């Protein structure tokens, strides 16, 4: 069994180095302040993040090299029946999934498998939020919120089509939702009316009350993540990859 795992790892690293990586940029260290009042701010070390979400073209390369992640080959526990449902066939994205549009309807397991294949990882929720908060001043909360006032388009727009953060990461708001490594780790508030149940289940105590009750878009993200299970696929939910800096910072 050990032998098998070693072989597998060798294979994965080999393929990752053979592929040209999506451009990643450095996100400076920061602090994520969770929406919940009684949670301590989370320090986030510098990391690297894809400048855009993983596209259908990129994901196609992944499933071509890893047939077990093709639609139809995945056990339900790793992705529900909506997995890549908008793709024309398991190996052909087709009209509803333009090559430069973000891949969606992928489960958390699938997103992670992709990241692993690239020798990378998913960003943590705190990393994602830190990156997403680096918005130019001209973008207001109301603008971010306005995305929810428009129906999901079919097909989705291409990546690099909305706005970018001050450090140059695109589409963190206004294109799709994105998986994070620990996507549901802050989902304590998500189930309205059930805070008591959750606080009973969570040691360390669950949160009630938000630090900033006017940040509606953040509420929506928290609630959305809280509704997910790792096998879920959603038409507007994709992902991007992250990595730690090559030279570990002290």
């Amino acid at each position, binding site marked *: *069994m*050990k032998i*098998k*795992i070693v072989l597998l790892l060798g294979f994965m690293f080999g393929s990752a180095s053979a592929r040209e990586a999506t451009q990643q940029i450095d996100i400076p260290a920061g602090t994520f302040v969770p929406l919940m009042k009684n*949670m*301590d*701010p*989370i*320090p986030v070390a510098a990391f690297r993040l894809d400048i855009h979400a993983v596209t259908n073209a990129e994901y196609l390369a992944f499933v071509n090299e890893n047939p*077990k992640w093709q639609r139809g*080959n995945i*056990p*339900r*526990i*790793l992705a529900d029946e909506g997995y890549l449902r908008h793709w024309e066939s398991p190996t052909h994205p087709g009209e509803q999934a333009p090559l430069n549009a973000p891949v969606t309807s992928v489960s*958390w*397991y699938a997103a*992670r*498998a992709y990241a692993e294949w690239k020798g990378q*990882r998913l960003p943590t929720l705190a990393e994602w939020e830190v990156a997403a908060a680096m918005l130019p001043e001209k973008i207001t909360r109301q603008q971010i919120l306005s995305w929810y006032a428009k129906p999901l388009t079919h097909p989705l727009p291409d990546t690099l089509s909305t706005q970018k953060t001050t450090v140059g990461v695109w589409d963190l708001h206004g294109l799709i939702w994105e998986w994070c*490594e*620990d996507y*549901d*780790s*802050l*989902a*304590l508030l998500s189930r309205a009316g059930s805070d008591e149940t959750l606080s*009973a*289940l*969570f*040691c*360390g*105590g*669950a949160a009630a009350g938000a630090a900033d009750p006017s940040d509606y878009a953040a509420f929506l993200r928290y609630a959305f993540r809280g509704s997910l*299970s*790792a096998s879920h696929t959603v038409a507007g939910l994709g992902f991007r990859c992250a990595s730690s800096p090559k030279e570990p910072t002290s």
Partner: protein
Amino acid sequence: MKKLILLPLLFTPILQASDACCSVAPPPETAPAYSDNSLFHLQASFLNTDGKEVKLADYEGKPFILAMFYATCPTVCPRLILDVHKIEAKFSEEEKTQLPVLLVSFDPETDTPANLKTFAKSWDMDTPRWQLWSGTAENARTLAAGLGIRYRKAPNGEISHSAPITLINAQGEIELQLAGPGVDSTPLVQQAKILLSTPSE
């Protein structure tokens, strides 16, 4: 009438249990023929207290009790472990040998195999029937996702987490889950006894 409709749902895993226990595990090179909802599909390996590499599918063919914890937890996890002890007390010695207990750590950084070995001793755990595993943060996250467990490590090292006790059947499927410590364990005990009474040879 309703009962008749519901019964097959409950029996399904049991019948599959008797099918699967008689088949030989497929060779690792081909895709294993686990059922759609089997946790054995999860790609996650761990280390046991002897430092040996292990994975969930090693349990294929027998039901087991599975919970996640971390050894330095000051509140919920001690209660969780006590509850598993109490559940065990409801089984005969013979039954117990058929129902291993697996505890997997959220916190591999602190819970090294050596630390967990000491921890098991301090709790009088019946090793090796009780297994304590740790591994990597990623693999703990993978297993937690499969079990629907949410957790978050605070900057001070304390981990907030849900703490279900899960009964896994011989196919690696979640047979029944108790929401957490303090919940009436009768349904889990009953269901485990049903699984155990299914002929294994």
